[in-house]
């Protein structure tokens, strides 16, 4: 056991599928560390704005605020989720991945894209924030044109990588090989959208035999299938917005002066939030529900409780996710009142139902299988459930015309809702997935230290809950989320939030050291070398990817 060699990790025994997954996982956790560092710098700056590296410069503070979600959401979360799903789809469908080469393209595009966006903010202080409210991203009186172009190219590369992931997922699901050799596309589509679950429920209520006793696709695959629809729509919207900004920036660079008001700011906001909300309220909630179901069944080794209801609920969540964007526009007086009421309040309310169902089904599956051993994956899963148990009701509270008037754009939104959802809810769920996949991806490599794993768990849990809570309390006292306070306002809450952020950063460092000590620096580097074994399956007879098989025919 050493820093160089790790515990018993042998990178040379890894298949192409394992290696490509691990490459993206490594990049994801490096980006996570960067996002955690950025977040901590901002929190510390709100305690003492004059400390380096921000030193009281609003432009520097907002540059960090702009890239923080790009690095955190895309560089880290997208990367980790995509990697896990490109491993899980072949594992769960018992078929090879469509293309390992495309999976490599995905992590490379997202890595390069996120790095470019970061460079644009670091070098040129390009800072329109992730919201890109029109016409701010094209405001060349405040921002450098080259910085803007580099930033938009970075985001575009991330979206191109995302489209690569989507193609790989669907091409794998629809491949007529292995167990699906005799399935029709229609059968796979019906199962993918959860319509079989709905028909099973209908037949049960009318006393008829089930439509399908053995659905073509397992429930976690259905969740990935469904969530990926939103991932696609979101990528198209962000790419569309990126092209619009890029066209204006290029026009400016060429000396032309185009009227930015040719594009209506409120209409653009609606378009952008419709797409962006597909990340927050679409793919995250659907992917998370699917991950909970998978984790619950893997941890317990039992069937999911109320599986048909879960399948139908995933279909409902997909439709809900397309119609909730107006809750971001409740403070926009030009937004039609009916849209605020129906989309912003009433349809959004359904998320309490769909996520509440997912929570209930997961808890019941675990409860029916007790006694269970409190493993790392179970511990993280429960913490993830807690995160969404806190963040989703917070969202429903603020998606209200009365409450939003005094909560919109405050630290409550970004703390009590967003960061609790992301850091406690999503990341705890993702860490659970990491611990479940660890033995499968590393060929049963022994973890260096369980004490370090536990230290990371508690530091992350307490840190994320604490930071979200203290930011939320400051928000209730009127603290805005997109403002650089420089006169010591809200100091007590900001000190407590900064301490919480530092706890999470320390937790991540402990996690990183534990992983490096397990796989070793040599093993870590070897992950990035080409795999000798081109196997793109897991748990079944080794087969190369569908693309390689077709080429060899």
């Amino acid at each position, binding site marked *: 056991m050493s820093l160089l060699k790790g515990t018993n990790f042998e990178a040379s025994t890894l298949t192409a599928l394992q290696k490509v997954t691990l490459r993206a996982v490594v990049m994801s956790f490096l980006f996570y560390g960067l996002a955690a560092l950025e977040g901590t710098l901002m929190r510390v700056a709100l305690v003492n704005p004059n400390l380096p590296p921000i030193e009281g410069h609003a432009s520097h503070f907002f540059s960090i605020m702009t890239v923080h979600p790009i690095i955190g959401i895309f560089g880290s979360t997208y990367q980790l989720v995509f990697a896990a799903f490109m491993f899980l789809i072949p594992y769960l469908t018992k078929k090879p991945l469509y293309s390992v080469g495309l999976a490599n393209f995905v992590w490379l595009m997202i890595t390069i894209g996120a790095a470019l966006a970061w460079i644009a903010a670091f070098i040129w202080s390009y800072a329109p924030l992730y919201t890109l409210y029109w016409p701010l991203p094209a405001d060349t009186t405040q921002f450098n044109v080259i910085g803007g172009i580099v930033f938009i190219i970075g985001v575009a590369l991330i979206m191109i990588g995302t489209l690569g992931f989507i193609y790989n997922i669907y091409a794998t699901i629809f491949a007529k090989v292995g167990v699906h050799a005799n399935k029709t596309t229609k059968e796979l589509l019906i199962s993918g959208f959860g319509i079989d679950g709905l028909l099973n429920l209908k037949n049960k209520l009318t006393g008829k035999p089930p439509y399908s006793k053995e659905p073509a696709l397992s429930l976690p695959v259905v969740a990935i299938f469904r969530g990926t629809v939103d991932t696609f729509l979101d990528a198209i919207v962000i790419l569309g917005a990126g092209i619009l900004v890029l066209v204006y920036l290029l026009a400016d660079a060429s000396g032309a002066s185009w009227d930015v008001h040719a594009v209506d700011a409120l209409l653009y906001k609606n378009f952008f939030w419709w797409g962006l909300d597909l990340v927050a309220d679409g793919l995250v909630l659907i992917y998370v529900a699917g991950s909970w179901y998978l984790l619950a069944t893997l941890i317990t080794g039992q069937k999911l409780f109320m599986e048909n209801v879960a399948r139908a609920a995933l279909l409902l969540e997909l439709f809900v996710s397309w119609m909730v964007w107006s809750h971001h526009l409740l403070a926009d007086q030009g937004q039609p009142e009916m849209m605020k009421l129906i989309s912003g309040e009433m349809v959004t309310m359904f998320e309490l139902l769909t996520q509440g169902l997912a929570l209930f089904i997961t808890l019941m599956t675990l409860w029916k299988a007790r*006694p269970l051993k409190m493993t790392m994956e179970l511990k993280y899963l429960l913490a993830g459930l807690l995160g969404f148990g806190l963040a989703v009701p917070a969202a429903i509270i603020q998606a209200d015309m009365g409450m939003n008037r005094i909560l919109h754009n*405050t630290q409550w939104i970004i703390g009590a809702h967003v960061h609790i959802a992301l850091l406690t809810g999503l990341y705890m769920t993702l860490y659970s997935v990491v611990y479940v996949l660890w033995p499968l991806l590393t060929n049963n490599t022994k973890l260096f230290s369980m004490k370090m794993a536990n230290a990371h768990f508690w530091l992350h849990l307490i840190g994320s809950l604490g930071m979200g809570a203290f930011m939320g309390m400051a928000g209730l006292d009127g603290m805005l989320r997109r*403002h650089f306070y420089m006169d010591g306002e809200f100091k007590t809450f900001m000190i407590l939030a900064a301490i919480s952020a530092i706890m999470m950063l320390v937790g991540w460092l402990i996690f990183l050291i534990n992983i490096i000590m397990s796989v070793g620096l040599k093993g870590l580097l070897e992950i990035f070398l080409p795999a000798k074994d081109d196997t793109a399956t897991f748990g079944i007879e080794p087969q190369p990817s569908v693309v390689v098989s077709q080429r060899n025919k």
Partner: protein
Amino acid sequence: MTFETSVELLKFHNVAYTVYAMIIISVIAWFAYNLTLEKKAKPIVRIPFYTYIGFLVAMGVGHHIFTYNTIPWVSEDIMRHNITPDKTFQIKIANHTFDMQEKMEITKGEKVLFDAHSTDLVYGFGLFRQDGTMISQMQVNPGSKNDLLWTFNECGEFDVRSTEYAGPAGNSMFVKKAVIVTGCDTKGA
């Protein structure tokens, strides 16, 4: 039950959400503890599935019904196009600067319309008390209507701050004591 000001509402919200947070944390902790016990714990309460679903729907819908009936600015906001304000203030925003009446003087209980226009970027228009707590706010989009109808149920001097990011230059969009509300008795009521 009616919340006259945002302070009253936020105090209630703070207590209610904290109680909820404590309950959900306790439930998950209790659940985690019992999950590992050899001896199977008896559930404290049995909640039938459809009761749970009914509870979620009731909470989701009930929350909006509750706020509509207890927060005065909800119905006022929805119906503002049919309400004639007692006073209207024009607010123009451009180049990260507020252009408005130097002191907006209001009497307690008056319905006031803040009619804001931006000619360049997306800004915000927020009213804040001297202790930093928020009274109300809206987004100010260029090219569309941004009208906030508000009834002041409290007296004092209030600041105006942009509540939306419009580039680093917007960080200083702050006007101290721009709004003065008078007409309260000596106890402030």
